[in-house]
């Protein structure tokens, strides 16, 4: 059969009337939510140590000492959890030519006139940006984070380097929080999206409207029958 270009092997038509399309397997969803949870906890504990006005957030974790202790540990969890996610998703997040047109007409996207845009595969450029931004920032955060992990790596690098690391860590943190906001916002604003990560399915209409190439590919594949 022809190589799949716009979908994962697991993606398939769940039901035909009304059409529902399976977008994420259970394991992927679990993986996503573990990552999401750790990111949120990191965000809260990190912000607590980032700005005095947010120090009260340490209360959530049971105080500054515990916050200080737990933040890097959650960081490790996030890193590996995201690594798994990355291995599952990176292929379809590779840039495609239609992404350029999509980005060029981002205005239409915001207005909601997708009919004016080329058909897309499983991810649009925005989603791909979030994916790659997360990937890069998480690497930056884990590396700089270990450098300033007083408890287990007190003298891993020189103090001047640690100073740079802590600055980079906080800048990267700000960036990843912005990306996070974008991700969450887009998911909410584009109605019908959340179910992809909750139930794992989207409506045919949603797929037709936002990821038509993806829908065509699995539709075509299913026509031939999944047996192949």
């Amino acid at each position, binding site marked *: 059969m022809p190589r799949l270009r716009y979908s994962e092997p697991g993606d398939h038509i769940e039901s035909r009337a*009304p059409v529902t399309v399976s977008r994420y397997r259970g394991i992927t969803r679990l993986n996503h939510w573990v990552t999401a949870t750790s990111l949120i906890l990191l965000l809260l504990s990190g912000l*607590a140590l980032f700005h*005095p006005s947010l*120090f009260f957030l340490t209360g959530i974790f049971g105080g500054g000492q515990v916050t200080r202790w737990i933040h890097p540990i959650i960081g490790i969890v996030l890193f590996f959890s995201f690594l798994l996610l990355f291995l599952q998703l990176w292929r379809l997040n590779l840039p495609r030519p239609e992404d350029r047109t999509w980005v060029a007409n981002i205005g239409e996207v915001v207005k909601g006139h997708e009919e004016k845009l080329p058909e897309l595969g499983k991810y649009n450029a925005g989603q791909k940006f979030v994916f790659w931004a997360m990937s890069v920032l998480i690497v930056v955060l884990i590396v700089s984070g270990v450098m300033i992990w007083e408890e287990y790596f007190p003298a891993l690098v020189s103090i001047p380097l640690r100073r*740079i690391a802590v600055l980079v860590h906080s800048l990267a943190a700000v960036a990843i929080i912005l990306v996070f906001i974008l991700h969450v916002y887009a998911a909410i604003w584009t*109605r019908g999206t959340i179910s992809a990560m909750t139930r794992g399915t989207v409506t045919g209409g949603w797929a037709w409207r936002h990821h038509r190439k993806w829908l065509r590919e699995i539709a075509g594949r299913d026509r031939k029958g999944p047996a192949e």
Partner: protein
Amino acid sequence: MSDTAPQPTTAAANPPVQPIAPGFDARDVVRISATSNVPQPERQLTKLAKLIDVSKCIGCKACQSACIEWNDTMPAVEENVGVYENPHDLTPDMFTLMRFAEWENPATNELEWLIRKDGCMHCEDPGCLKACPAPGAIVQYSNGIVDFIHENCIGCGYCIKGCPFDIPRISRVDHTAYKCTLCSDRVAVGQGPACAKACPTEAIVFGTKEDMVAHAETRIEDLKSRGYENAGIYDPEGVGGTHVIYVLHHADKPSIYNDLPDNPRISPIVEGWKGVTKTAGLAVMGLAAIGATLHGLFARANQVEPEDEVEAERLVETEAPQPQPREDV
């Protein structure tokens, strides 16, 4: 309560054994970590200083010994690694350390054994306090003492990154930061720090900063008369001056004294991190969050139209698989 606390000097008298109220406390705090606009106290304590006259120091380590005894710490028995420094570095149990440097004076070709007592400098502008994220973990009293309040310390180690002199150390036991307190508990009852009290040659003296600077001048005079033209005082401006000051025979090159910083200052990186990054970062994140919320509320959401569903069904029912677009090949 009088409006001035007792004026401590080095071992002016033996320590009191009757209970006595501390000469200064929370009301005299001028700076608090992770806390802006601290209300300034009504009274201003006299600025204090510990003077370390390196030219009088015999490197006997009495200061280390007295420090251990007064603070009831017990540094580990390490090994000899070919030097006189023991412990090998400052530790959470060793707040002060004699550092030894064998220096051949190029001007005279004489060997000089430069011995410097290392420890917290009690900066007027403390980098540790600036870097600290925990409210109240580091405070500065109006007499200049920079003290760690361990109950508030979270052990993050930011103070280490903030300090221009590499002084604070994090305890592996209670995970809080330790350093010289300038014996705030002794000073509070009118005693000098334990190290100053012990110092056999009185190379370490303690009193008001004014007196200490004046005393330093007389020492510098004596040193100049003995041929040390560059004798001088070390009270670095970069950190707004310090409350632990040195008399150096070679004040023109502090770094020969085991890397005493020539021009110490809080690292610009730390300034940037704790300054613009902190504020701007918070602002940007705040705006983004708010912006998104507003847009979500007021802008029209991207809805899936009924005809989209129809199209989808038609596709699933009828449409043949698309030919592979060429550009993908």
